[in-house]
């Protein structure tokens, strides 16, 4: 965003960035806020220079009103910068390359039959673990090792005359990914696992792993907190939500906005009192650590403490949290 705002991107990257903004809610909102700011600043009116300044200057310079120079408007119309380059909309649609970790991608590896001559070095692109591949048969080894599981087989023969057949199938393979908890790939992978119910099971193991690895302040990452907040909001199973809120409480970055919002929502409306209790405890911990809770969190605690039909323990814990708050 800074580079785009200050026109530091080359045309191609500027184009790509605009395309991304169109598709990304968070970036779109931020960009629109910048645009609105720029427009709001328009409201600062041009102020007229008092005539006495001209008189004083001309007197100091020792020049009078020269013949032919009429008292011109004191406000010189300056040339505004033409509509900001970054406000101009891109015309062409370019497929956004690179990007998400799990974007499907078609690759057609070209295998050279003659020795390759390296003309230039390009950076090695990271592997995507959820690739969709389209490959020639002669690119695959004829040896099939390990008896992989194959499913959803499709046989496609779009042109019977071309002597080519096409097989599409899903195949399972086992990946072992090693890395530092702070590696972005590791963070993304774990966040995806936390959030994607159908992609992996059992989830409870991932939650425990995340709690173990990310309780260390050195490994703190807001994406993990965001993923846990999503689990807390969306999972239909109480035990999973309880684990998620418990894990959130132990993360060093628990005071980020998505986490706080998820805790507030859980406190307001989770049907299970244990989840609401843990959400209060998490907010209380934040208050005790000296974090400033925003007005919404404070109001939610206040409402909960006053709510006659709420579990009494939850009410008492909410009141206790309020004692430690510095608004």
């Amino acid at each position, binding site marked *: 965003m800074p580079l785009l705002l200050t026109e530091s991107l080359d045309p191609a990257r500027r184009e790509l960035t605009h395309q*991304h903004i169109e598709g*990304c809610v*968070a970036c779109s909102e931020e960009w629109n806020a910048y645009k609105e700011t720029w427009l709001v600043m328009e409201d600062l*009116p041009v102020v007229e220079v008092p005539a006495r300044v*001209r008189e004083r200057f*001309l007197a100091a310079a020792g020049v009078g009103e020269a013949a032919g120079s009429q008292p011109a408007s004191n406000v010189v119309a300056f040339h505004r910068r033409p509509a900001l380059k970054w406000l101009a909309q891109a015309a062409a649609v370019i497929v956004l390359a690179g990007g998400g970790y799990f974007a499907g991608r078609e690759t057609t590896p070209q295998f050279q039959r003659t020795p390759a001559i390296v003309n230039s070095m390009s950076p090695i692109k990271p592997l995507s673990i959820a690739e969709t591949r389209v490959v020639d048969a002669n690119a695959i080894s004829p040896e099939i090792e390990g008896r992989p599981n194959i499913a959803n087989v499709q046989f496609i023969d779009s042109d019977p005359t071309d002597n080519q057949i096409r097989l599409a199938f899903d195949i399972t393979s086992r990946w072992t990914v090693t890395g530092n908890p702070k590696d972005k790939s590791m963070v993304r992978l774990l966040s995806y696992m936390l959030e994607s119910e159908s992609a992996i099971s059992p989830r409870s193991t991932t939650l425990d792993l995340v709690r173990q690895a990310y309780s260390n302040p050195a490994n703190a990452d807001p994406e993990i907190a*965001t993923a846990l907040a999503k689990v807390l909001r969306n999972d239909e199973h109480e035990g999973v939500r309880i684990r998620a809120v418990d894990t959130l409480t132990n993360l060093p970055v628990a005071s980020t906005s998505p986490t706080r919002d998820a805790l507030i929502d859980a406190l307001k409306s989770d049907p299970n009192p244990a989840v609401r209790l843990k959400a209060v405890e998490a907010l209380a911990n934040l208050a005790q650590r000296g974090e400033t809770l925003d007005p919404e969190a404070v109001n939610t605690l206040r409402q909960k403490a006053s709510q006659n039909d709420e579990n009494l323990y939850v009410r008492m814990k909410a009141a206790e949290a309020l004692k430690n708050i510095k608004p």
Partner: protein
Amino acid sequence: MKHLSDQDLMRIVQGGDYSPASEIYDRYSGRIYNFAFRFLKNAEAAEDATQEVFVKMLRYANQFHGDAKLSTWLFSITANWCRDYLRKADNKAKEPEEVLIALPAPSEYAPDRALEQRENEQRIRRALQALTPEQREAILLSRYQGLSYAEIAQIAGCSEGAVKTRVFRAMETLKKTLVGEASGGDRCLTVVP
């Protein structure tokens, strides 16, 4: 004189003839005054700045090189003057003017609209004052004077990269103050390669 370019006028001045002074003043005083006023938020200081800048223009005319833009040079002098003004301790201690939003005189706008305009103006002025002097200088020159980053870098005496950083930081602060945080609060961490 009106048909002569800035370079032509300055050549005359450099020759010792100050007759183009009023023409140059008429061309640029509005921009210089508005920049100084928005920067210092003080009308009296802005008047002094404007007068001083054009006096210096005459006094140091020989330092102006014809290949540069006159506006850039004038803004350079103005920015230096404003910075010196702020640096002086007694100027810092002066109470900045409080602006009373009075009920507007009848205008083409409905009273509500005029008051709203004045309120917006107030907000923007306050928001600009919340910036550091460097950021304020950069955003005023960029947003209101239409100067390029290269020109602003020359005026501010720093690199173009530093100017861009100041502009961006200023926009961040102004966005928060004038528009508020974008809703949702989710951050996008996608990097476009």
